[in-house]
């Protein structure tokens, strides 16, 4: 009886169902992390801008977004954005919320990386005729990257976990598929454990890879 509740999880149809959920989870996480990297880097650059109002706006963005519950942002982008005339599908509403939230955290990571580059190098680059953006691109960012990669990977792990929030607005990702399985077989304990293990395998491999990179970068 109890064993059956575990065994149904191994039926090919259920395994396949879990895997299709995992695929959407990974897709959402990948799209969101790429967007967050772009926006986060932009915001980090804006935060060190010479023009004060831009600096303040960037600061306000990071401070408010990273201090709000992600769930509120997910609800906002799915339920409130249509009131502003912006209708997003479940998938994109979730991706937008993840991106807004994660980009604020990425911006902090990037800023930490930028600040780790000694100030003298920036001055040297500028006095040798580079523009601000050239200095960023050729001098600061390549060096900052080393500092940034380990925290960025752990941010990515967080993002993979966070995609489970999309289930609340009905995205058919990993957790949602798990939910449909345990509703059908009445085995929440077993299915939730199984789904947790799937998340764990993905995230733990990512974490290990992050640690490997960290060691490699440290010895360079």
């Amino acid at each position, binding site marked *: 009886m109890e064993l059956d509740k575990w065994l149904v999880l191994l039926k090919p149809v259920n395994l396949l169902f879990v895997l299709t959920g995992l695929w959407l989870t990974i897709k959402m996480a990948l799209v969101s992390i790429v967007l967050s990297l772009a926006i986060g880097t932009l915001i980090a650059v804006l935060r060190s801008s010479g023009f004060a109002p831009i600096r303040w706006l960037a600061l306000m963005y990071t401070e408010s977004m990273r*201090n*709000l519950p992600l769930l509120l942002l997910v609800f*906002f982008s799915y339920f409130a954005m249509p009131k*502003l005339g912006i209708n997003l599908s479940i998938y994109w509403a979730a991706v937008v919320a993840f991106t807004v939230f994660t980009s604020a955290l990425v911006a902090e990571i990037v800023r930490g990386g930028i600040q780790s580059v000694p100030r003298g190098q920036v001055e040297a680059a500028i006095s040798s005729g580079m523009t601000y953006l050239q200095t960023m691109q050729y001098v600061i960012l390549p060096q900052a990257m080393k500092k940034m990669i380990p925290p960025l990977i752990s941010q990515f792990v967080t993002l993979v*976990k966070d995609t489970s929030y999309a289930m609340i607005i009905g995205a058919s990702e990993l957790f949602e598929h798990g939910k449909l399985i345990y509703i059908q077989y009445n085995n*929440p*304990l077993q299915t939730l454990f199984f789904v947790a293990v799937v998340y764990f395998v993905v995230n733990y491999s990512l974490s290990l890879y992050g640690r490997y990179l960290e060691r490699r970068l440290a010895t360079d």
Partner: protein
Amino acid sequence: MSSNWITVFSYTPNLLGGLKVTIYISLTALLLSLVIGLIVAVFRTFPNRLLNRLGLAYVEFFQNTPLIIQVFFFYLGGPSIGIMLPRVYCGMLGLAVYTGAYIAEVFRAGIQAVPSGQAEAARSSGMTYLQAMRYVIIPQAVKIVLPPLGNQTINLVKNSAILSTIAVGDLMYQTNIASSDTFIVFEFFIFAALLYLCITVPLSQLVNLMERRFKAGH
């Protein structure tokens, strides 16, 4: 627009009630996760391989799986093996178990930051392992630990919104109820966001202050 705001403000007592529940849940879960974190961190630094591994397994498992699964595990999984807890406790347990894994790592970093010579000195002057922890290591580790602990508290408050999915009556839940009662969505979410920021922004300022203070002190 403005008439919407009047309706939203008339729900202020409900939302403030929700905020109170959010604070209550966060504080209780924080206490629990401090206990869990401390135990796991001591395991992690214990000179015993098995306990060490157990602590590590705890941290890795709970840090690498979504919080919402852990909450649902207590909420739905518990009853299926005959453990019935009120919803609020299921939520708090989920939050505490999850945050405890992060706090354990914070504590471990703090413990390990204290030079090992001091622990050895304490041991060789006749203290037991736990006494050395209590009188020598932990008092020094506190400074290193407080700022990241503050960050975990902020995360805990934000994460508590997830408990609205099991209907514990927190701020997020009350906001959802009010907005589906009135069909006013935008304004309610903005209002709730501001209420959340009222808790998290001062906390994050406090963390910044501590970081600067403790850095200056070294």
